[in-house]
């Protein structure tokens, strides 16, 4: 009866409700940041009581005064929260609150207790121990209540998130980056082939068709490789982002601090949205050139094989082998 521990159950439950609301609110924000959507920003805790303006929940939905007046959890909190225990347990106090909320009963004075005015968590304002609740007070109390739980925000923001389009674009970005390089190299390889074939008088020949086919196949293979790498890079990124999202949720669970989790989510999201640093794609046709051009030339140009035609030369026969052929 009146001992500090007599309402320990109510306090524990109120604190647990706060913690769960913090986690749920933080989850909404993380999901909105990563999955795309609107979310609340700038927590309203400590916000000027009489000038709250428009208020939003963690998902960025506008909270109206009517919502606060009809929120049964708020009335329960008034009754059970340690900061307003005495006010709430006074029937006239709650009646007063209800009067202002819904026009029930008659207005009166709200007493917070002998030391209530010095309680920093006093919902009526620091230093104030008695106040007639006006609709603004009720709204302010509601704001503080929600704000403490990380459920009330003074603004909203929208995140594009990491949806299918984001990853599709990431694939396309890689393709756009790599394809011009591949095209340049393909053009050069084709020029080299044309020159060699023309040099040997083989432009219109079965050998030319074979070599052109092999070059086109190689181009197809390299182009498929670019596409595959682009898709793979987008998938790797998706994996990283999901892992990071999961890490942030774990942090939120442990800390019950949606502010910290949300700011980390935002910086992480911004980091992943920034362009990646791509490495040059390297020489894509060197193997093909070594295999086909280098081996083709000696067999088709007698002047390069003087020793076979009695012309005398210092060239060694080793060069007739493709560079990727193992020599004894």
């Amino acid at each position: 009866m009146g001992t500090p521990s007599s309402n320990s159950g109510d306090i524990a439950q109120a604190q647990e409700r706060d913690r769960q609301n913090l986690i749920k609110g933080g989850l909404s924000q993380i999901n909105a940041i990563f999955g795309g959507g609107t979310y609340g920003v700038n927590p309203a805790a400590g916000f000027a009581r009489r000038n709250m303006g428009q208020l939003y929940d963690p998902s960025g939905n506008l909270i109206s005064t009517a919502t606060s007046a009809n929120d049964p959890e708020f009335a329960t909190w008034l009754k059970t929260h340690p900061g307003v225990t005495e006010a709430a347990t006074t029937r006239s106090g709650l009646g007063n609150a209800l009067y202002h909320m819904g026009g029930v009963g008659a207005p009166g004075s709200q007493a917070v207790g002998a030391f209530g005015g010095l309680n920093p968590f006093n919902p009526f304002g620091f230093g104030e121990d008695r106040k007639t609740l006006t609709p603004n007070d009720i709204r302010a109390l509601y704001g503080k209540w929600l704000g403490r739980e990380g459920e009330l925000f003074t603004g909203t923001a929208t995140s594009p998130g990491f949806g299918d389009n984001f990853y599709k674009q990431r694939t396309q970005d890689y393709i756009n980056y790599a394809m011009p390089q591949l095209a340049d190299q393909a053009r050069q390889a084709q020029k080299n082939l044309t020159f060699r074939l023309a040099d040997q008088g083989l432009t219109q020949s079965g050998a030319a068709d074979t070599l052109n086919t092999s070059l086109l196949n190689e181009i197809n293979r390299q182009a498929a490789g670019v596409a595959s790498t682009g898709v793979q890079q987008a998938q790797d990124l998706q994996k990283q982002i999901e892992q990071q999202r999961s890490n942030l949720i774990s942090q939120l669970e442990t800390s019950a601090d949606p502010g910290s989790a949300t700011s980390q989510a935002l910086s992480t999201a911004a980091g992943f949205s920034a362009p990646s640093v791509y490495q040059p794609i390297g020489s894509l046709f060197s193997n093909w050139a070594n295999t086909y051009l280098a081996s083709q030339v000696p067999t088709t140009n007698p002047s390069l094989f003087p020793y076979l035609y009695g012309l005398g030369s210092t060239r060694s026969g080793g060069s007739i082998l493709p560079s990727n052929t193992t020599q004894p």
Partner: protein
Amino acid sequence: MGLETLALVGLALSAAGTGAEMYSSAREGEKMNKAAEDEFARQRGYQKEATKTFQGSLAQATPAVQAQQQNIGQQKIQENVAKTQAVARNVIPTSMDSGPSELVQKEATAAGAAQGAQLGRYQGMDEYSLRQWINNLRAQQQLQVITNLARGSEGTLPFVLNQARQSQEGTRALGQGLGALGSIVGTYGATRPKAATVPTYNLSGIVPYNANLGV
């Protein structure tokens, strides 16, 4: 007040005390049961949510979903391969004098498409694997959050039970006080020297009927 009356009052007080204690115990029991029932209801809610999450995750892991996800991956690869191959082939001029003939180009295009389809079938599995991994990770995370909330809620039960127990301490103390008072009064009534039954001597010489004067 007569001694019998005191004893009766004592008895009545003891009975009232016992009654008050029984009442407080009954009320305490009710409150504790209610607190426990409320918590069980909350736990059932968490359990229901967890089951829903698990079932939702299972629904995303059926062979039909697997085939669908693999198909998405396959299409994704094929589309991109077709796009890149077309761009790459366009840099190669087709003419009678130099470069591959149209026939060679056509054959290469067909070979490239077949290659893209094969690659899609092969790499499409990556998409399935990735989506399943994400599905599992999210379900696991969701279950972890639900477990966290359930444990947090469960952790408040001892405090709530303690509060329920303490809420009836006043009534119980009153009962105990009444019982103790009744006991004292009753004991007093029972043990006090029976002044009313002590023989009284009549100074006029009349011998009390129960006095043995040895005469």
